């Protein structure tokens, strides 16, 4: 028997902060129905640059995130805060992006902070031993 059940995939809505964006990089996923698009937005707050990641970070979407973080680091951004509150999924490929960005940032004398990962994402940092390597707030 197959009980009727909805997939219940989450979706997000544009919020007021859209008005203060300095850059938006997005890449549609392959799902025709939408709702799981991957989206990166960058906001320069003066003393820090906040990168907001929404959607799913995997082998298809990680390159865009890596490129954006490296671009910020390479232009001399000393403090990057990555807001993960809207990140619905991350696997080891996504972890690798953050490890690479952390190393690159520190080599340039900068810092990278991860903020507000959902519990499932936080658990993946924990089980891979990366929680202690990162500054994870929230």
């Amino acid at each position, binding site marked *: 028997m*197959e009980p009727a059940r*909805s*997939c219940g995939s989450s979706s997000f809505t544009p919020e007021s902060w859209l008005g203060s964006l300095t850059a938006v990089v997005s890449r549609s996923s392959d*799902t025709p129905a939408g709702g*799981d698009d991957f989206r990166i937005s960058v906001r320069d707050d003066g003393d820090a640059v906040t990168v907001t990641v929404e959607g799913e970070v995997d*082998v298809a979407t990680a390159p865009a995130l890596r490129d954006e973080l490296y671009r910020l680091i390479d232009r001399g951004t000393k403090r990057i805060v990555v807001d993960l509150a809207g990140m619905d999924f991350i696997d080891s490929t996504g972890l690798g992006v953050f*490890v690479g960005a952390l190393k690159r940032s520190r080599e340039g004398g900068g810092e990278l902070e991860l903020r507000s990962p959902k519990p499932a994402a936080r658990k993946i940092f924990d*089980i*891979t031993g990366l929680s202690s390597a990162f500054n994870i707030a929230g």
Partner: protein
Amino acid sequence: MNLPTSRARSDPSGGGPRSETNGEISTVFPAVAPSASSARRFVAAALHRWGCPDALVDLVLLLTSELVTNAYRHAGSETRVSIRCDEDRIRVEVSDKGGGEVQLRPFDENRTDGRGLQIVDALAERWGHHSDGAGTVVWFELVHPGVMAR
């Protein structure tokens, strides 16, 4: 396990032709990066049809994503994903056409890769791999319910 198929149809989400019996389904994904996402959606749809708890679905999606990503990266071939739901466990098999080595690496926080199988090893009840003549099969099993509570 080869059960007679009850139906076969095209997968509108991007996978190849698939077959499904009650509690077992498989399909083939092309050797492209978005197949990891397609495979997650394929597995999620099956598990939801079968009434799996959401927490368990999330875990299966993560581990499936790791294995499909490994197949894409290392074999570069199309990948078959099979999922079976029994009374007490879920088993996922990911088959590719590569002869690649399946290697669990030690923890190293400085590496940017190599964590996929660490995650599988940490979260699966059992996992393993074998060659099936045409390529490599990597599989994992999760016992339900209560796996996330460990």
